[in-house]
């Protein structure tokens, strides 16, 4: 098991937002965490990345306990994250953003080779390399955010709400790329509101409602389940 989230509770002050959450991700998988807006999905992914501290429970990456590790240490242990809202460095150029992505010590010496790889995945970034990231379109920004995370050469990628604000066509393009990235040996943990698209590419999925995991299993099974069809796929 690559990532284990065991009985995790998260509180913001007096307000408890996650209740006894258990999630497991094995090497090479695409695992999705789906649910409606405000269910606590982003909180869970931010907790794994070290941006939020769990009040109870444990998060293991391999054998390492991540609970009290700051975000930069989590990145050093091997987990990269594409945050919600892309969070690029707007005044830096595309190339500078990608170079910042290779900040980790293990990634720096291989920066040039990784850059060529990322440019192959997203050719548009090569064309835009000299432009400030803040001037890119939404889709290009999302590609840059993924490319920047890939530059760290970590084998585990957390993806938070990639589809937000993008056209269906762009979402499909980006999800196709995710499958390619996964085939290159990178494990993906995806948090998404776009349930049908996510279930199509995921191996397994967890469903979260009001801070609790209410369902888990193979993505295919979820697509068949009556509850999921009704609540998330708009079918009845």
């Amino acid at each position, binding site marked *: 098991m690559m990532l284990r989230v065991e009985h995790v509770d998260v509180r913001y002050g007096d307000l408890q937002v996650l209740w006894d959450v258990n999630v497991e991700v094995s090497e090479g998988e695409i695992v999705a965490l789906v649910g409606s807006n405000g269910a606590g999905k982003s909180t869970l992914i931010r907790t794994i990345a070290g941006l939020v501290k769990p009040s109870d429970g444990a998060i293991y990456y391999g054998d390492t306990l991540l609970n009290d590790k700051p*975000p*930069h240490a989590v*990145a050093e242990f091997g987990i990269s994250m594409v945050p919600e809202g892309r969070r690029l460095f707007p005044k*830096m150029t595309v190339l500078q953003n990608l170079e910042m992505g290779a900040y980790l010590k293990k990634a720096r010496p291989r920066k040039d080779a990784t850059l060529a790889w990322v440019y192959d995945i997203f050719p548009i970034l090569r064309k835009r390399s000299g432009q400030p990231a803040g001037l890119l379109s939404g889709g290009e920004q999302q590609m840059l955010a993924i490319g920047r995370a890939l530059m760290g050469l970590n084998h585990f990628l957390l993806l938070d709400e990639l589809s937000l604000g993008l056209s269906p066509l762009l979402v499909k393009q980006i999800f196709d790329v995710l499958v390619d990235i996964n085939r290159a040996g990178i494990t993906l943990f995806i948090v998404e509101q776009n349930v049908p698209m996510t279930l199509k590419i995921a191996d397994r999925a967890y469903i979260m409602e009001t801070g609790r995991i209410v369902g888990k299993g193979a993505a295919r099974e979820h697509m068949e389940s009556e509850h999921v069809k009704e609540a998330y796929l708009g079918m009845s």
Partner: protein
Amino acid sequence: MGQTLVYGFLNGALYGIIALGIALVFGVMRYLNLAQGSLIILGAYGILFLFHIGIDPFASMPLIAFLLFLLGGALFKVSFSRLIMLPETGRIKNSLLISFGLMLLIDNLATLLWTGDERSITPTYSGLTLGLFGLRFPLIGCVGVLSALVIIVALHTFLARTYFGKSIMAVSQDYEAASLLGVNVNFICLVSFAISVGLASIPSVLIGLKSFSPTVGIQWFNKGIIVVMLSGIGNINGVFPAGLLLGIMEAISVYIFGAPYREVTGLVVFVLVMVLFPKGLFKRQEL
């Protein structure tokens, strides 16, 4: 007139270099360090002490820079590091409170140690001037401008070329995103703060060679903060030209209205720029 402009230019360079330290910390962390002026004066006392035991002020500058760098790091660790967690407005307000206390502490400590008398460092060359185009250029002022330029170019190169410098810029634009890429935000902030306090050593020498007393720090801080606002918040490259502009404006006003109105000029320019160009004069279009 020409001679007035020369003095304005040299003063402006000093304002620019004072503002550099303030702008770096404000740009990266959104901390407003009110005590920067007092730290400059503290450095001036250090240089005065070394001068009395026979060391030239410019020669002691690197040592004072290093000591101020260490002091800055310690101050950050003890009092400012916790604010990083707060949202932007919280950081501005709390850093103002802390640095105000720090300013009172340093000023009173200096009064206790060295009395409130006005001091001045007076090496043999302090009155020398260079004649050029029929104008007089004070030697010390010229060395000040040169050292300011060298430091600014060095700082710019450091920020733009090294991984450490780039991560300072990244933290200033989005510290959370930077931390997700493996940047130790606390450490970057510690070093940036220490550098900004270390930068105080240059104005320490230049002001030390004029005259200073324990409580004038805040007046120099005022010049610095006006320049930071003129330049545009977070725009480190605009700080030096903005400093020159303020110096020259002051000089022109002295020429026209007389010396008593000099202090008013900066504030009037400040208000006008805030009304007409709220993002600063040298700030590129916000992305």
